[in-house]
């Protein structure tokens, strides 16, 4: 399937029609108390080699015992990604020698994985405008259960390698995305959506910085109509932002290489985040034959659904796909649709809400506590609140302005006690987090709208009187521009404490007299 490259690629001229093809292999660490095949604990940043059972250390005579929670996590994820769940799946051994692989093989699912043939929908904004979003789909080839390896740290000064087996045996879901993506942005958006899904399901915490979500990209380029080019695998990508960079760099590198008459090697490359480029990895010299073999100590994994559940089964011993399906939480796409429907906000808005951790809750809390319509609240949350947080690299949780404070402010605005310009000023003060309420700041800075109509009328009259030329112009017919100028003058006079709508009405009334 050839995806025709339909828009100009950022960064260089659209000269030669090279079609980039990007596939992804994503490893998500399963969120569970214990490991995939043994009872030792799963915990981030524990003292080295403190979470290692006899089986994890590959002591002779130890046997794997499958962790039920890991199976459920994989089934949940498979269902969320619209996969077919294989009622019978198998475990295999993948052999290679490495210091962080104590048994000399990894237990994985090569022949028949637990879930296949799914799809993931994700959205991108076109041309950096939040107003235009397009939905894309990437096919999920399969999801398989497998063991994580330990960690090895190379200490060159002392010519030694330090091995920490805490992570050895932790459950992973490998999610394979078909090469349906065409650039870094698509890859990043797809991964971001997968991350949100996993976090919603709870099957993985999917925090890239803690190694709970690892992405390898397969990149190649070819001319349309021709077969796919040689692909490279890019590893060592530590964030979604770096994923986009790495993929785009690699596409560019390959394109330039081929344009200059060179060839692409089928190799593994590492992304160097400092230099912003990919470099060949020395580890993998030549192709490895993993000598796959069925894992003889684990019988086939059989899953049931309500229809085929045998009569006398012990509920503890059985994983029921239908039971899991019934208990799936709302996925991000469903959540977004509900937000749009419930609050009348735009799809792009719901996107941003879900994209920031905690922002949806913040928004909903504000809406609950204010009379302002959600359609208006959203602007304050996305434009004012969010941009401030971004500027200061704060998370929603760290916001010095709580939903209550913002709701309170918006209420003042809604009751027309202050103008929106004033409201922005108040917000700027609230950021300082000095514990004052909006009302206190308004009083302090004297930002209240002038409520006394008579006072306002007097000011309007004064302004009109002082602007004879403008009045003549108005009579001659250039209404709007003059009117706006007059409104501006009134605002200046009142130091922003006049309601522009009311002022316009008063001026118009006076001028018509």
């Amino acid at each position: 399937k050839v995806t025709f490259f339909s828009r100009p690629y950022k960064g260089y001229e659209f000269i030669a029609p090279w079609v980039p093809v990007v596939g992804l292999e994503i490893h998500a660490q399963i969120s569970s108390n214990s490991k995939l095949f043994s009872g030792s604990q799963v915990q981030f940043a524990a003292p080295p080699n403190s979470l290692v059972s006899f089986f994890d250390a590959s002591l002779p005579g130890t046997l794997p015992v499958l962790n039920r929670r890991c199976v459920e996590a994989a089934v949940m994820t498979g269902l969320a990604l619209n996969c077919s769940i294989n009622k019978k799946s198998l475990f295999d051994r993948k052999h290679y020698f490495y210091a962080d692989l104590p048994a000399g093989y990894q237990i994985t699912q090569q022949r028949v994985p637990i879930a296949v043939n799914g799809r993931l929908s994700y959205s991108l904004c076109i041309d950096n405008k939040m107003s235009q979003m397009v939905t894309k789909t990437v096919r999920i080839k399969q999801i398989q259960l497998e063991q994580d390896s330990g960690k090895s740290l190379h200490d060159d000064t002392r010519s030694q390698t330090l091995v920490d087996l805490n992570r050895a045996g932790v459950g992973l879901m490998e999610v394979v995305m078909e090469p349906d993506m065409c650039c870094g942005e698509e890859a990043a958006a797809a991964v971001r959506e997968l991350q949100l899904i996993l976090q919603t399901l709870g099957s993985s915490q999917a925090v890239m910085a803690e190694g709970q979500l690892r992405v390898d990209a397969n990149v190649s380029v070819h001319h349309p109509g021709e077969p796919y080019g040689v692909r490279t695998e890019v590893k060592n990508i530590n964030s979604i932002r770096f994923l986009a960079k790495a993929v785009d760099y690699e596409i560019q590198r390959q394109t330039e290489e081929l344009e200059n008459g060179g060839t692409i090697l089928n190799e593994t490359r590492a992304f160097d985040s400092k230099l912003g480029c990919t470099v060949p990895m020395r580890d993998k010299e030549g192709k490895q034959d993993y000598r796959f073999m069925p894992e003889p100590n684990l019988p086939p994994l059989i899953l049931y659904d309500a229809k085929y559940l045998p009569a006398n089964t012990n509920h503890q011993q059985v994983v029921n796909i239908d039971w899991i399906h019934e208990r799936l939480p709302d996925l991000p796409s469903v959540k977004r649709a509900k937000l749009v429907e419930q609050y009348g906000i735009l799809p792009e808005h719901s996107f941003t809400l879900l994209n920031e951790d905690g922002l949806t809750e913040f928004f909903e809390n504000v809406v609950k506590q204010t009379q302002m319509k959600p359609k208006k609240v959203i602007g304050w949350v996305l434009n004012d609140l969010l941009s401030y947080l971004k500027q200061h690299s704060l998370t929603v949780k760290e916001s010095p302005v709580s939903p209550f404070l913002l709701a309170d402010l918006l209420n003042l605005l809604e009751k027309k006690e202050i103008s929106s310009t004033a409201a922005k000023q108040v917000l700027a003060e609230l950021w300082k987090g000095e514990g004052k309420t909006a009302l206190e700041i308004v009083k302090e800075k004297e930002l209240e709208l002038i409520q006394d109509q008579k006072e306002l009328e007097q000011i309007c009259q004064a302004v009109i009187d002082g602007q004879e030329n403008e009045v003549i112009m108005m009579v001659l017919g250039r209404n709007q521009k003059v009117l706006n100028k007059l409104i501006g003058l009134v605002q200046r006079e009142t130091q922003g404490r006049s309601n522009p709508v009311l002022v316009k009405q008063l001026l118009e009334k006076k001028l018509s007299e």
Partner: protein
Amino acid sequence: MKKTLYVAHFALIAVVFAIIPNAGQPLGVLDGIPIAVKDNFSTAGIETTCASNMLKGYVSPYNATVVQKLLDQGAVLLGKTNLDEFAMGSGSTDGVFGPVRNPWSYSRQYKEKSVPKSHSEDKDANWVITGGSSGGSAAAVSSFTCFAALGSDTGGSTRNPAAHCGVVGLKPTYGLISRHGLIPLVNSMDVPGILTRCVDDAAVVLGSLAGHDPKDSTTIQDNFKPFELPNLTDVSKFSIGIPKEYHAPGLSNEILALWSKAADLFKNAGAKVIEVSLPHTRYSIVCYHVLCTAEVASNMARFDGLEYGHRSDMNKSTESMYAATRREGFNDVVRGRILSGNYFLLKQNYENYFIKAQKVRRLIANDFVKVFRSGVDILLTPTTLNDAVPYMEFIKEDNRTRSTQDDILTQAANMAGLPAINVPTALSERGLPVGLQFIGRSFQEKQLLTVAKWFEKQVKFPMIQLEEVKRHDHGVFQHQKSASFS
């Protein structure tokens, strides 16, 4: 045989010590019973070597489930027994501690019959092997140093030495007894084996060991109920099958005759005895070779010197350390099987070798299914091709050749996962034990052992007469006047 005497006394002392602390309530059926365990079972706090340099000094931190079960019953562990390195072999001659000597080498029965080649020859020179790979366990039971021993059986490793040492050797159905803690050779065929002096004892030990183990996902979930064997008198309800393919090339005339006599015994007692066919028997050796070496290559991958066991001093790089460790730690037999196994698992060979062998394995297993479905209850076959050969003769051929020859009669039961038992039958012309094998239906150990027990009673296999022991204990080990089967 000073060593035997020492061990026998030690056994008495151990029994005494075992009883005193537990004064009052016996822990279980095996309370105070001395047992031995093959050195490929993990024993907590006790060195577990698999007779290999790779694990010399390795002290396991946990007990194998079967060991734990025996200890929970109050059994007294006398020691770990010798074997072929990593259970690879059929003579118990290729372990790092040296070969195991068959106690029958020192029996009056053997010495009477053996003619030294010349007077100057060392009397000891023609001692015979135990068979393998659980030779140490078989020898321990055979020489009265313990009442029962654990072996393992992957291709015949419990039944073969049982036959050569004149003891009962039971291979249970795959999935009945936990393999947790049994250092694996071939995960899909290994079972813990039971060696005892009589069939009743085997049933008792089986009763303590069988049952689901959550730590071993290949054990069946069904509840297992220990059983007592009935004293069968009437075998007329049974149908005994005689598989013609077990008249294998190399089967000695002596054993052939014995086999025939045994069949007649059943016939005369009223049982239905019929010839059956297991047509794929002749492919089992090659099939076993492929599957066994493939799993060995995989199972041995963990021995890299990093976490436990032998580690080479070579430290130029991780890879060179691995290579040196494995070269130093493993003997030729193990390394040979690793190389073969890796070859068969290569991507380009996997389909033609490994997959094909799995298919052949299914055919072999189906042979048995068909025969048992046709109304046959138990199969009767020889266990070995010959009686035990002298060590000096045995080592003239390499391990692989010997295994190929010796496993032919026992291996198919491992392929099919079926229960099988060696019952000592008679002494050969050379005064050495010969046993016959019964193979039963999956999980029908009770039926299998019931028939075996009946047979055992008929043949009255003679007791080993160990000369030195006899000298010290007049009257304890009486010379049995047996109407012996041969």
